[in-house]
């Protein structure tokens, strides 16, 4: 019943895509397409939430006679799928709502409208697929439709290169996944997930499948060093699509990893719990450091997605470590932390991308160094962006803090692990997590402060106007969800319980019966957190302080020039820029991570040319991995190109040689 409903939603989305293709020139096309998407995703969201909250109804499956003739297309709705469907359709609904307002400014709707619902449909299909072929088909469909969306503004500089790199990395990832599923299906060739579950692979094959899943799903999610396409492709797409790609598509990649490694692969080995958190930790720190060096708002947000994916993989890796040592309770905690962060991140990252989209719409600028003072011109957008920034910096009482707190609690269970490498690695990964959290706060002080605060640096910033009601509604709905998930985390943790139970066969204590809505992940004596009380106290204290102050203090306020130590400068160019804000952090971390270097060119005295400060950053994975690989491929391609220019006799020789070689192989084999 629920599964049929979901398939109908997918059908509606595909239909909306076709309608978008057919009706592009008409006026109502945008409203029709985005409205249909909104409706379909809302229905899917309701179905998924209902399934998650009534776990007895989960487990339905369906086989459709499409696809490979001997396989069909299997679909299944279990707890993991239901959770990720909630995440995906929430993001999709919010993006569609946002797009109802944002889409009016689209110059080439014909390049966006057909592919947007197709993208949503593809993601939904990946989540409900229950056999390898359907999964991979839907995965490729998702990649291709998002590629089309990335290329929507292909005439802008850099977008074509971004699209090309995206296509390359997506194909590479899909290849890894095909190999992984091939190894999982084994010699018997049973591609349905149920068949794979019945036949867990040997330890060696499992190790190879893990690495392939890390490469395949990790490249889509953005793990270092496979992250290089993300900051180029995500910003190139229109803002609502960027929100979907960063907030939702990366989570679909995480779903792929969880499905393969936790569900299909059987019991994990202990060293998986060392490899995955280490990759997660390195990704988190490098992602946020890259984000700090950016001054393009959307690229900063895209790099920041890399950091959060790192945090999610830290949680997943910890769950693997605990699971390998049969500590199911601890594994349940780590997995809850990771999945809660999946939900939280999709909410606040979408919110932040919507804010960036609103700014882009109003000013036409993505570069923070040409903005400033927008809090006066766009106050509501600023408030929503502020809430998103506070949430992503893991500040109580918002939701980002809850998932990070749960991850730390999982890390503190590490002494119980028997392997020495794990005992040392987990606190080191904890240190990396703490470092990335602190740097994330710095990053968002920079992003919000330089863009919205201060004085406007250019004319467009001075004349910006507030965005439309649809965009604001979408943003504030997500902001309210951020606050709600932070104040009432117990309900969300309980909603996750069927998923955790399915994957680890263990459970956290039920949270909703606890006093005052506290959450207690392990035991009362060990640790607890009460978001509602903290929020209540903060509001109460601020209120009491304001009330007391206003009663007893002078209420006089006078507007005047800024003090600025007695030297106020009317030019807004003297304010801090994005580059100057991150300079201390670049000095501290940059020489190691980016081989950062500063060069100052000072012309001699009397020369009227300006002085120049040049900051050079090297992307180390690019220089070490990608550039040499690209050179190697280019070199091989040059050599192999000779094949294009052979004579007829040459080609005949090739055919003859191939035939003889195959016959020889046949004789030897017999």
């Amino acid at each position: 019943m629920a599964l049929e409903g979901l398939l109908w939603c997918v059908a509606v989305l595909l239909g909306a895509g076709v309608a978008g293709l057919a009706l592009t020139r008409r006026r109502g096309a945008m409203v029709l397409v985005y409205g249909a998407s909104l409706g379909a995703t809302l229905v899917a969201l309701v179905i998924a939430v209902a399934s998650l909250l009534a776990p007895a109804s989960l487990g339905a499956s369906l086989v459709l006679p499409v696809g490979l003739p001997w396989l069909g297309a299997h679909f299944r709705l279990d707890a993991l799928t239901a959770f990720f469907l909630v995440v995906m359709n929430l993001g999709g609904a919010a993006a569609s709502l946002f797009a109802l307002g944002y889409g009016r400014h689209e110059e080439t709707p014909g390049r966006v409208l057909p592919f947007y619902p197709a993208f949503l449909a593809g993601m939904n299909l990946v989540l409900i697929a229950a056999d390898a072929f359907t999964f991979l088909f839907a995965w490729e469909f998702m990649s291709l439709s998002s590629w089309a969306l990335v290329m929507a503004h292909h005439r802008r500089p850099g977008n074509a290169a971004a699209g090309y790199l995206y296509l390359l990395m997506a194909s590479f990832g899909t290849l890894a996944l095909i190999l992984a599923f091939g190894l999982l299906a084994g010699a018997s060739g049973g591609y349905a997930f149920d068949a794979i579950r019945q036949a867990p692979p040997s330890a060696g094959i499992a190790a190879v499948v893990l690495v392939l899943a890390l490469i395949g799903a990790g490249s889509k999610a953005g793990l270092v060093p496979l992250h290089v396409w993300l900051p180029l492709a995500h910003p190139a797409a229109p803002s609502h699509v960027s929100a979907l790609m960063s907030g939702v598509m990366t989570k679909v990649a995480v779903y792929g990893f969880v499905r393969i490694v936790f569900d299909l692969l059987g019991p994990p080995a202990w060293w998986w719990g060392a490899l995955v958190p280490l990759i997660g930790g390195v990704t988190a720190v490098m992602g946020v450091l890259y984000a700090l060096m950016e001054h393009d708002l959307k690229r900063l947000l895209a790099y920041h997605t890399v950091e959060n994916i790192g945090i999610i993989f830290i949680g997943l890796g910890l769950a693997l470590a605990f699971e390998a040592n049969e500590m199911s309770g601890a594994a349940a905690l780590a997995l809850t932390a990771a999945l809660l962060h999946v939900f939280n991140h999709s909410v606040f990252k979408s919110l932040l991308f919507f804010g960036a989209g609103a700014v882009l719409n109003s000013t036409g600028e993505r570069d923070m160094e040409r903005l400033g003072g927008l809090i006066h011109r766009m106050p509501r957008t600023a408030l929503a962006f502020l809430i998103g920034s506070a949430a992503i910096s893991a500040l109580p009482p918002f939701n980002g803090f809850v998932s990070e707190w749960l991850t730390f609690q999982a890390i503190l269970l590490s002494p119980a692990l028997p392997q020495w490498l794990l005992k040392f690695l987990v606190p080191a990964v904890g240190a990396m997590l703490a470092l990335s959290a602190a740097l994330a706060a710095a990053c968002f002080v920079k992003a919000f402060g330089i863009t919205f605060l201060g004085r406007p640096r250019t004319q467009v910033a001075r004349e910006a106007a507030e965005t439309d009601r649809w965009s604001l509604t979408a943003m504030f709905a997500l902001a309210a969800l951020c606050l709600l998930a932070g104040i009432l985390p117990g309900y969300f943790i309980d909603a996750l319980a069927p998923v955790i139970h399915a994957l680890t066969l263990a459970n956290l204590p039920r949270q909703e019966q606890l006093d005052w809505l506290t959450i207690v992940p392990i035991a009362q004596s060990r640790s607890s957190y009460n978001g509602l009380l903290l929020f209540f106290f903060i509001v109460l204290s601020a209120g009491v302080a304001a009330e007391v102050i206003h009663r007893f203090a002078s209420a006089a306020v006078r507007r005047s020039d800024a003090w600025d130590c007695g030297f106020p400068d009317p030019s807004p160019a003297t304010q801090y820029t994005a580059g100057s804000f991150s300079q201390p952090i670049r000095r501290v971390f940059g020489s190691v991570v980016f081989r950062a270097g500063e060069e100052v060119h000072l012309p001699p005295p009397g020369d009227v040319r300006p002085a120049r400060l040049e900051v050079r950053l090297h992307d180390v994975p690019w220089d070490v991995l990608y550039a040499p690989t690209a050179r190697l491929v280019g070199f091989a391609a040059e050599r192999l190109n000779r094949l294009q220019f052979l004579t007829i006799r040459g080609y005949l020789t090739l055919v003859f040689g191939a035939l003889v070689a195959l016959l020889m192989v046949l004789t030897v084999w017999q």
Partner: protein
Amino acid sequence: MIDPLALDVAHLFAGSLVLVSFMLLYQDRMTGLINIFALHALVVSLSVAWQAYIQHAPHLYITAAIALVIKAVVIPFALHRIVVRLGIHRTIEPVVGVGLTMLAGIGLVALAIMVMLPITAQAGTLAREDLAFALSVILLGLLMMISRHNAVSQVIGFMSIENGLILAATGAKGMPLVVEISVAFSILVALIVIGIFLFRIRERFETVDIHLLHEHRGEQP
């Protein structure tokens, strides 16, 4: 059975030795380096004296006294004199930067612990901890030798390795006195020889910076 508080104090001394090794890595000035090395030797002698007390092994008191007199007083004094006489450049540049060196140090301590604790599973608690810490001190001393350009700091690194060996030997229930005396004398002789070499190098090349001396290796004109 050894009293837990006594164990904790021994453990405290050994841990302080590791901490002082880190402080040696952090130093970037010559006088500071030599003074911290004197502190290193002091902590070793205190640790050995405490071991003598709890193991009821009076010959270790002599070891402690030798460590105190020779390594905490005589050698630092001699090094200060050498530095002043040769006019050696007073700051020490590390090869890769303090932060990375310290991070590598932490990794080495983790490695030492990971290696030592499982291997010595049959031994007593005191010996296990002291051996793990001693290996850390030895590795940190080696790190100091390879991460500095300056010859004097390499000498100090070498001598801190020797302190780590003393910690290991005393932790494993005592070392014969005669061995300790001969080791100490050999260190003293080594120091004298190194001092003479430093004088000669300084006379010939006007510097003791290893980096610059490297060019004069071999048969190059």
